[in-house]
């Protein structure tokens, strides 16, 4: 096991514990989703959710392409795809935050019902992960512009891409179990 593999394995162990964290939030959500006071599917806007899903999935793809370009030391192509990933990720976060603020403005509070509490906890935790990943991605963009595709930067990009793909993976279950089930 060389140094790169060790770094990746370390990140992977973190991702696996994160998976358990999200699983417990999902379990809480599924248990509490019946505990709603007069709210339900009407709370969410389906087109927004579909767009969010599409944006995050596309950003996951561009992130992978950015990594491939970086491995071939094509700096500007890699930077372009990484920037696209960053912008798509930021768009996703913006959509999510505006969704939250729309809910709050329509009188939904964290304490409104068990359903809403567990919804904010689950989707909010995912959003927080996205925000942290975006900060990491921005720092990496600056580092690549400043020092180019050094060994260290490519390694960081590899780790970041795994983290980013993982967040897209969690989103599959959020749109299925949170949003689609609410529409039924």
């Amino acid at each position, binding site marked *: *096991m060389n140094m790169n*593999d060790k770094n*990746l*394995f370390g990140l*992977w*162990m973190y991702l*696996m*514990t994160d*998976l*358990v964290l999200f*699983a*417990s939030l*999902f*379990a*809480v959500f*599924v*248990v509490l989703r019946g505990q709603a006071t007069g709210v339900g599917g009407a709370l969410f806007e*389906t087109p927004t959710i*579909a767009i969010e*899903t*599409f944006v995050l*999935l*596309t950003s*996951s*793809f561009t992130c*992978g*392409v950015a*990594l*491939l370009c970086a*491995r071939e030391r094509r700096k500007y192509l890699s930077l372009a795809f990484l920037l696209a990933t960053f912008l798509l990720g930021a768009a996703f976060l913006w959509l999510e935050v505006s969704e939250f603020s729309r809910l709050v403005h329509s009188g939904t509070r964290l304490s409104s019902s068990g359903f809403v509490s567990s919804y904010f906890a689950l989707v909010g935790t995912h959003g927080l992960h996205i925000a942290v990943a975006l900060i990491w991605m921005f720092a990496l963009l600056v580092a690549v512009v400043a020092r180019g595709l050094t060994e260290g930067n490519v390694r960081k990009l590899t780790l970041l891409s*795994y983290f980013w*793909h*993982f967040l*897209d*993976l969690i989103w*599959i*279950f959020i*749109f*299925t*179990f949170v949003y*689609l*089930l609410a*529409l*039924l």
Partner: protein
Amino acid sequence: MTLTKYIVGYLFSLCATALAFGIVELHIAHHHRWPTHAQLLPTIVALALLQFIVQMICFLHLSFKKEERLRLLAFGFAAIVVGILTSGSLWIMFSLNGRMMPNASQMEMYMQDQNGI
């Protein structure tokens, strides 16, 4: 790690997502009568799981190859923990009523029934 793998993963995920949204929209368009909940629920859960597996292979490069063995092992363990955690929680929480001790008046009726007290 090739471009083809990423493209395949991306296209598959797009299709699975569109399909999941599509059949739910179909369900709403038919006034929640067709496809029925019993048909719909397993379908969208299966689509999500399928997409999860495809992304695990195409984006997170998990495989049965020797160099990925440790990561696969860690994932297997996490999957077991997740399975116990979620199914256990749901099992307990959705069978609470059946496991409750009956209230005093129900208990009295039961005892009269059984023992003629």
